[in-house]
């Protein structure tokens, strides 16, 4: 299945890149000593493409994801997402860009514990003042196989079920780009594999651009392209086509 995905995805990209990072740097200061987390990282992502960034813990891959998604600002370089220069935008302006174009899946699911599965999926639709919120959220939950568990709270769901809710929440707004941070990192192999199937299946049917960060090479292998982070530098992955 991974092979099929890769084959299809590699034909999908169009000419215009949706995401361009140019010489991106991130430096933080720990006890007044600079710590260079990202060192001149550049990459391009085409619309509809699926890209995996792999690397060991502490290699800077999650930091890069945060920057590419507009959750943080780089210390240097530029990031363009669908024509927006993210590094020049304020946090609120970046929030607008995220609201229009971006979906997220996190390693720790990030479901709100006081909302039911259905309400968690409804939340981004409600924020964007969408129509038929309940119906769309319910359809999406059914699509991830949780039609029977809509009224359950996160702590009543297993890890795999929680991540399915998170997938439903990410796809329900039909984002242009989906950022996934270790989406199977908190799950056992079998459950992880099922979640990955679901993620790539949804990605394929909705033609979303997928940017995935993981240390799991099997999962990364299911993406059309793979980049490797190492100590803040980006290297071309083994199966990649950079």
């Amino acid at each position, binding site marked *: 299945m991974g092979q099929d995905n890769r084959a299809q995805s590699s034909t999908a990209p169009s000419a215009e890149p949706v995401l361009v990072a140019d010489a991106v740097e991130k430096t933080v200061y720990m006890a007044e000593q600079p710590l260079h987390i990202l060192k001149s990282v550049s990459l391009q992502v085409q619309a509809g493409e699926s890209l995996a960034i792999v690397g060991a813990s502490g290699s800077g891959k*999650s930091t890069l*994801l*945060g920057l590419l998604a507009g*959750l*943080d600002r780089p210390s240097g370089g530029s990031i363009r997402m669908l024509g927006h220069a993210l590094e020049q935008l304020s*946090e*609120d302006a970046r*929030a*607008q*860009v*995220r*609201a*229009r174009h*971006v979906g*997220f899946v*996190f390693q*720790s699911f*990030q479901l*709100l*514990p*006081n*909302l039911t599965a259905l*309400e968690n999926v409804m*939340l*981004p639709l*409600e*924020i*964007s*003042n969408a129509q038929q919120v309940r119906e769309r959220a319910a359809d999406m939950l059914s699509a991830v196989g949780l039609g029977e568990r809509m009224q359950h*709270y996160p*702590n009543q769901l297993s890890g795999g079920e929680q991540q399915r809710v998170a997938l439903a929440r990410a796809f329900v707004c039909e984002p242009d780009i989906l950022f996934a*941070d270790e989406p199977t990192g908190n799950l056992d192999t079998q459950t992880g594999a099922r979640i990955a199937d679901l993620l790539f299946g949804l990605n394929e049917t909705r033609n979303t651009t997928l940017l995935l960060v993981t240390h799991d090479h099997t999962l990364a292998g299911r993406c059309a392209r793979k980049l490797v982070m190492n100590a803040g530098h980006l290297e071309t992955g083994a199966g990649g086509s950079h």
Partner: protein
Amino acid sequence: MPATASNNHWLLALRMLRRDWQSGHLNVLVMALLVAVTTHATIGFISGRIQNSMLVQASALLGGDLVIRSPVPPEPLWFETAEQQAVRSAQTLEFSSVVLAGDAMQLAAVKAVTDEYPLKSPLKVSDVLFGPERALAHGPNPGKVWVEQRMLTALNIAVGDTVEVGDATLTVDKVLVFEPDRSGNFYSFVPRVLMHWDDIEATSVIQPGSRLDYYAQFAGEPAAIQKLQEQISPSLHPGQRILSVHSQQRSISAALQRAEGYLQLASLMAILLAAVAIAMGAHFFSRQHFDTVALLRCFGLSSRQIMQLFITQLIVLALLAGLIGSALGWALHFIAVQMLGELLPTSTPLPGLQPLFTGLLLALVILPGFALPSLAQLQRTPPLRVLRRDLAPPPLSQQISYGSSAILVALLMLWYARDPVLIAAIFAGAFAGWLVASLLTALFMRALLVVSRFSPLSVQAGLRNLARRRNGTRIQLLGFGLTGMAMLMVILVRTELVSTWQDQLPEQAPNHFVLNVLPEQRSDFNQFLQDNQVASQPLYPVIRGRLTHINADAVKQAATKENKDEGEFDAPEALNRELNLTFAADLPSDNHIVAGEWWSSNSSTEKQISIEEKLAQKLEVELGDELTFFVANQTFTARIASIRTVKWESFQPNFYVIFRPGDLDDMPTTYLTSFYLSAHQKVLLKDLVRQFPAVSVLEVDAILARVKGILAQVSAAVEFILLFVLAAGLTITLATMITTMPERYREGALMRTLGSTSRQLRLQQWSEFFAIGFLAGIVAAGGSELARFGIYWKIFNLPYTPALGIWIIMPPLFGVLIGLAGHWSSRKILGQSPLILLRES
């Protein structure tokens, strides 16, 4: 999309509020707010009700809801205006006159009344001397007089005989036992004669230069009375005075003022409690929402939209809690009225609805006000938190959060009390509490290292927890400490007020005054009391005299000063009538010297006096000034040697002016005393009067009972409100305790997973909570002592005595209290599987 989102933010806010409510995230905030508003509204309604009831009783003592005293006949226009506004009115005229019966004569305080008199509570009369009493809601008919018992004995006449008042001959119809609106001293020398208004002319007493006191009395609805007073006030002559409930009845006004002060204090404490709870609840609320906000920002909401979202939620929450709390307060006040029973008759006029609106306003101000600093922090949650959970918004500047809360509390208190001194005292106390809390946390961290070395491991762990969460510990210390301070103040002040009132009128307070005991009868009189086992006050010598000059200025000039003054103090006896002078070797026990010294036996040859403080202020005299008196055709001068306070409310014989023994020798002297007679001892009075015909007996049972009733009512109200504030304090302590729980759940679960036994965990919890409570007890004691010092000094006019006991009692007591509350709140840690707890947290 964000534009539409902002249009939609109302709906989204409501949805989030509903979900937060369902999940229990709002419990603490709602509880704190509800307790605050309910306490505020209940106290508001009860004090409204009590004030109404006290006004009803006090206006009975005054003779009307509005009374104007005038040396000339009142304007007929006043009565017409009153009638137009459906206000009832009556007129009385008081003057002194010698009453004759055959050859006997007696100076009498005559009072002529119109048909409408009395407007408030009825007169009490009996048909024969010392016969059974009955209440009558009218005065004597024309041609008749009702006289006091001492008039009958003085003139040696009986009911049915006639007396001459001026040129009129009137028939004694009844014995006057109680006159609700008799003002002035209870033991005024001159007995009362009550006659009809229409007989005034026949007496021919109204001559140019006669001293007359007209009283226009009005009774009606408060609004109409208020309007009438506004209409009448501008037309008053300099000599005409509006008498208010507060100015007239010295025995009650002090109690009334203190009770009002207490209610105000209790309300302020409720506000302080609420402020603490809401600030802590909001802090908790905001910490619980870091993840939500990070996610919302990740989804694309701007910080402004997030602020709008939460503020909308808070406003809706405040409206709901304000409405429900006020309604609860209305309901609870009925329960309180039931509990107070006869003390606060259910027939008392219902209180105004003002607390409903102020309750709502309070909720609307207090919740957003105290939650805003926390929300401001919340909106700065970095969206990157979705990837890195350790990222939290930058902590609030303490100056900003404490400062803005303090300013808000100050404004709220000012709105409530409009009494800067009271507020300054409470603030000083709270500031002291803050200092103590900061100092204790700083010291505690050091002491901890030493102490924990000698304690069991679990205790060490508990104490180290406190040291580790240094900031949280300080906030909790301040929170619990202020709660304790509020509760402590309400308890201490209540205890002192109630005991002051009980001391003021003990069970057997004198209910009879005996005047005119002749010098040669003294030993017989004492023997009579002793034989009948009546305990009495000593016999005080009384010499009647008139003040004529102050430092060689004639008193007439001084008297004009009095007219200018609209103050509460009323001393016509001192300036215009005869004064009761006395001499004494010892200072009366309830008097206190405020200036000068009480005399020692042979200090000087010139005459010396001790003068009452307020009379001294009125006359504008100081130590060393000379007063000249006219007594029994002699004029003599005495120098002021001391100024003293007098407890007029004590129902003991008291004097404006006391001479040194020996300085009034050879003056015509009689004696007076007071004693308590129970109902079945009353028959003694007949024997007393028979054996000592010259004496006058003044019964003050009815006034005493009324004053006691009011004091009991005030005490009961104060106790009820105390209970209410305590309950609120405890609820809020528990609620704030819950805010510290999530972190404790996680730690407890971890400890259990790592193999801690229940006993170890319990010991750890107890040592941690007990330590916090113990320290908070010290904070509370320090804060309340400082605040109490200021309040007693300025508001209650009570001497401040440091309550040393609370320093010993409070820390361990509060330690156990917080320990129990903490144990109860964290019972889940011991009762549930650590797995579930870890998962939930």
